[in-house]
């Protein structure tokens, strides 16, 4: 781990996770998680089902608090501020940290209204500004050409892959710094998956991305850093190339070579 910490310093850390523990009731779901998430990089989180990777990514924007029996200890610093500080405004955090979910979850509104949802709740009313936000966000999400002629049709008319890109566009519309993606391609077909992967690559120019995936090839293809979770612990965190070609922990090697999980 000491070596991994060293290599992580190359990019500035946007998140710094320190001795973070989380319990669902009696169930100890995350144990002493400690690592830095670099800025403008893609950080992949891999691990078998139930290892706490979804819980971890939901902790980064405090969505985990929607579960009533959750308890936490330790700290997660976002830009050097502890997000679990009672004075920290969760709405402000989530304005800076967007999230894309496992299942596409557009609102039952038009494509246009889906994208402007975020800007509108933050008080932007000017029609021209909103129009340009819609165009910019949909272009960034590589969806503009497919939907530009039907912006005012219901988002449910889109295919699953298009819906997921719409959800990405929706989270881009409030210009966050970080985008959290919780298995964004697990409900999609291979072609849509490829499109989202290409999109992630292009988005890291402007955004820091954390992506949970149970597809190891995907992690290897698109991420710069990879953290391997097992039973709520971070077993290994390193440059993706390093972790996949030369893992330092036997359990990591067993997992990425498919011996379990």
């Amino acid at each position: 781990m000491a070596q991994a910490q060293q290599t992580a310093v190359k990019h500035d850390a946007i998140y710094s996770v320190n001795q973070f523990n989380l319990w669902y009731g009696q169930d100890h779901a995350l144990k002493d998680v400690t690592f830095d998430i670099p800025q403008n990089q893609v950080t992949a989180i891999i691990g078998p089902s139930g290892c706490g990777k979804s819980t971890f990514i939901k902790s980064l924007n405090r969505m985990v608090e929607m579960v009533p029996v959750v308890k936490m200890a330790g700290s997660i610093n976002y830009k050097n501020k502890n997000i679990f500080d009672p004075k920290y405004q969760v709405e402000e955090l989530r304005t800076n940290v967007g999230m894309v979910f496992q299942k596409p979850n557009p609102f039952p509104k038009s494509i246009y209204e889906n994208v402007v949802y975020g800007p509108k709740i933050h008080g932007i009313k000017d029609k021209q500004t909103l129009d340009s936000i819609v165009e910019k966000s949909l272009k960034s999400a590589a969806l503009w050409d497919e939907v530009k002629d039907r912006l005012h049709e219901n988002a449910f008319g889109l295919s699953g892959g298009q819906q997921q890109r719409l959800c990405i566009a929706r989270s881009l519309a409030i210009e966050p710094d970080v985008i959290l993606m919780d298995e964004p391609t697990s409900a999609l077909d291979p072609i849509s998956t490829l499109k989202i992967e290409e999109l992630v690559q292009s988005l890291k120019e402007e955004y820091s991305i954390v992506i949970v995936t149970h597809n190891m090839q995907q992690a290897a293809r698109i991420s710069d850093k990879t953290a391997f979770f097992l039973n709520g612990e971070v077993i290994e965190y390193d440059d993706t190339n390093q972790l996949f070609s030369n893992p330092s922990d036997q359990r990591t090697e067993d997992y990425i070579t498919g011996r379990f999980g």
Partner: protein
Amino acid sequence: MSSIDKQLIQRQMGKRTFQNKLLKALFFMCIVFSILVLGVLIIRVITQGFTHLDWDFLTSFASRFPEEAGFKAAIVGSLWLMVIVAPVSIFLGVGTAIYLEEYAKDNRFTRFIQMNISNLAGVPSVVFGLLGLTFFVRLMEMGRSIMAGGLTLSLLILPIIVVAAQEAIRSVPNDQYEASFAMGASKWQTVRRIVLPSAIPGILTGSILALSRAIGETAPLLMIGALTFIAYLPENVWDGFTVMPIQIFNWTGRPQEEFHLVAASGILVLLFLLIIMNSIAIYIRNKFSKRY
């Protein structure tokens, strides 16, 4: 050695299918009986009611003479009552539902409230009448007014609206909340922009059905002392009033046979209004309900 005896299964097959057919017939009899009773009721009311149902009936006041008796004061009184009941009960009911579903923590107090709302829905309406009489009419000195009657009926249908609104709110999928919160929306913004638009068809349907229950209520209004015979229209919410079911009740209590026919006409008007309200509820449910 098979553990399933194929011959035994064969032998029991006939018995099982016969049982199925028998019960199907029984359930069919149940619905035939209900429809038959309803049909007899409607036919009787229509054949009797149409004898008096004309424009004069709708525009005249009540009278000692059956041929001159009209329904005007009762219709207007019922409408006045709705002016109070609809906004008060929907506002209180939806507000309560939003608080219970979105803001209340899941603790003993919340569960206690929740349980009592369900209990309240089962309290006989005459008890609400007593509450209205002691609280609104006497304690708050509203007198036997539309205001007192309207507030009493609002309380009566409040639990129905709360439960309907809660169910409508609960049917909004969790991923919609997640999407909104993840964007930095506050709870109220999420409720207003995501939850209510999806829940409103359900809320309106429940509210209209509750209102149609209120419009047919007699007992609580008799308790608070709504009038049974008035020959003027209420001018504001502090005036005395009568409503359709009370007028009908009054007519059926008269010794003259003629008045029973007048009552049937009144029932027709009331039924017509109820059908309209229920149709609106069904229309709203089909037209605006969203699928996920």
